């Protein structure tokens, strides 16, 4: 990963944290100051979906052209995507505690997100239980693609069909509809970009560590 991208990511995050916590936000009933969760919670889910998408992309490339490098990348993206998902879950629960009254409200969006995480945890279990490296890469690649396709309806379709209290689904307007005024956009979009860049950075580090480990094994 290019150095200037890393610098941009860090600078943007500094900006997001200061502006996100200090700048004025619209006054809204119930939401009040928790609307700031938008800067930290939503980018996590954007990041998770994008990282999983990259993971699926490398899984497809691996199946088309089996080189170990694609497999390493696919796993690294899945790992970091899961970390983002868990962080998104925690920030969401924190937010729900103050607006909905309890951290786990059984909202369809929460349940769908929990299942999405289960899918990827199952993916890691599958990788753990296959010994042959080539087979592990191929089978987990297949599961990755299949599971991603199964996950899409859970996160994006079913919550929109049922009544959900999550902003943006089940008839509830998203932030866009009433309040995402230009001030919030000024922080929100940089936040999405910055968190995604941080995700990419972690992935590139993981891939490098994996490569170095392989080199060490070869030496020995």
């Amino acid at each position: 990963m290019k150095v200037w991208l890393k610098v941009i990511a860090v600078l943007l995050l500094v900006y997001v944290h200061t502006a996100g916590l200090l700048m004025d936000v619209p006054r809204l009933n119930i939401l009040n100051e928790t609307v700031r969760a938008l800067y930290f919670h939503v980018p996590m889910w954007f990041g998770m979906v994008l990282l999983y998408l990259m993971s699926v992309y490398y899984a497809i490339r691996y199946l088309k052209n089996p080189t170990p490098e694609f497999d390493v990348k696919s796993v690294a993206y899945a790992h970091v995507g899961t970390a983002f998902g868990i962080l998104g879950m925690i920030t969401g629960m924190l937010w729900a505690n103050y607006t909905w009254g309890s951290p786990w409200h059984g909202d369809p969006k929460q349940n769908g997100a929990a299942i999405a995480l289960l899918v990827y945890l199952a993916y890691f279990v599958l990788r753990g239980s296959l010994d042959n490296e080539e087979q592990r890469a191929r089978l987990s690649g297949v599961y990755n693609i299949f599971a991603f396709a199964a996950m899409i309806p859970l996160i994006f379709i079913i919550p929109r069909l049922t009544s959900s209290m999550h902003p943006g689904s089940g008839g509830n307007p998203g932030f866009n509809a009433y309040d995402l005024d230009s001030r919030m956009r000024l922080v929100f979009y940089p936040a999405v970009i910055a968190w995604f860049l941080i995700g990419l950075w972690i992935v590139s580090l993981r891939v490098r560590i994996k490569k170095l480990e392989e080199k060490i094994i070869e030496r020995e």
Partner: protein
Amino acid sequence: MNTSIIIQLLRKEFILELRRKSVIAGLGLYLFSLIFICYLTFNLKENVISPYTWSALFWLTILFSVVNSVAKSFIGEKKGVFIYLYTVASPQQIIISKIIYNTLLCWLISVAGYMLFSVFIFNPVQDSVVFMAVLLLASIGFSTSLSLISGIASKANNSNVLMAVLSFPVVISILLMAVRATKNALDGIDRAASTDELLNLLAINCIAGALGYILFPYIWRS
């Protein structure tokens, strides 16, 4: 693609299944014991459980029996059988024959489960046509997604545990849709209200089927 080979493979599955009667009897007994446990634990009274509890129990029972029965489509097969199949048929033909066969099996299990539930617990279904359609669509969904996962799990060491771990998250979307459509059938509301859920189920089935068809060759090649 040659359909005669698919038919031959299907015939082979049926002949084998009829020859190993103990397997079918085992499945039937599994289903029966599950339903009997439900019946005993909920203490027999009709008014004790609401129709929604009924639907939850029903789908749980079906899910467990179906996962167990579809799991054996690849898990537990001898290596020699795989090698033989490899030489006579293409992977696409094998997965299609497995999906068709498993659909029939799942459908049989769910209809048998429905009958046992109405005998032992009670039958709250008001619109049986919609309910049957849900059973059929859910069976297709279960068989398409579980056949592929059974293929993946069969290559791993602890395949039986892995089968459950891998399959539950994937079939949840099918299950959720089925439960919602079942709720409509239980309430007996206008059929037009359930078409959405049925179409969604059909769409999920199409996605799962297409993915299974495309991805299976990669599992098979080893």
